[in-house]
């Protein structure tokens, strides 16, 4: 990096953690499953 242009070095050094981003989507889907389960119960109750 010492030979890189600072802009490039900066871009490279601020690379997000894509695996973490993907991992974060797991809880989203689980949370959605919970909501859907709850919804199912509610709809049953309403029926």
């Amino acid at each position, binding site marked *: *990096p*010492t*030979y*890189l*242009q600072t802009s*490039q*070095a900066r*871009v*490279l050094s601020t*690379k997000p953690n*894509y695996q973490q*981003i*993907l991992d974060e*989507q797991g809880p*989203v*889907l689980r949370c*959605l499953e919970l909501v859907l389960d709850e*919804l199912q119960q*509610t709809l049953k109750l*309403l029926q």
Partner: protein
Amino acid sequence: SVNPMAYEAQFFGFTPQTCMLRIYIAFQDYLFEVMLVVESVILKKLDGFPGCKISPLQIRKSTEKFLLFMKEHLDKLFSKMEEVLLQLVLNIPKNVLLPEDKVHEQYPYSKEQLEALQDEIHQLQKQYRAEASAGQALRAELEEQKAVQAELEKILQWFDGLENTCREHGTGNFKESFAFLTQNAKRLQDVLKDVEEKSK
């Protein structure tokens, strides 16, 4: 000290002195050879005069005498010729630079300047290598982004699909529907309470 005429040797491909030495030796050899031929011709002619009193020794002495004389003159004349040729023909004047050495005129680099130039080149090479690997890393990230983006868009499409399903079944917005239901339920409760109170 002999001037090696190295610059001339670089140009001519031979040292001028060597060239002159070779010519001198050749001339000298010719002179000797021709003198021997002259002597043998004269001896042969003398065979034709059996009564003559001239001995081969005499002829040999004559030959040596003439040869010595010629050799002295050859040496004297040759050294003059050599001097002139080395000065005027087979030499490169001090102010003349040969074409192949033009670089020395154009780039009179000192040791330090050359090292600085080499350092600069090394620096550029390192920079280039760094840029090249940065380029690779950036491209790799682009590939990674494609995969992540596809994944995230898939999730969004999932949400879209879900919401479209709800819409198709008349519930555009669960939240509002539930809020409405809750409101209604509460209103029903109030009505229910009213009715109970009145009936008491």
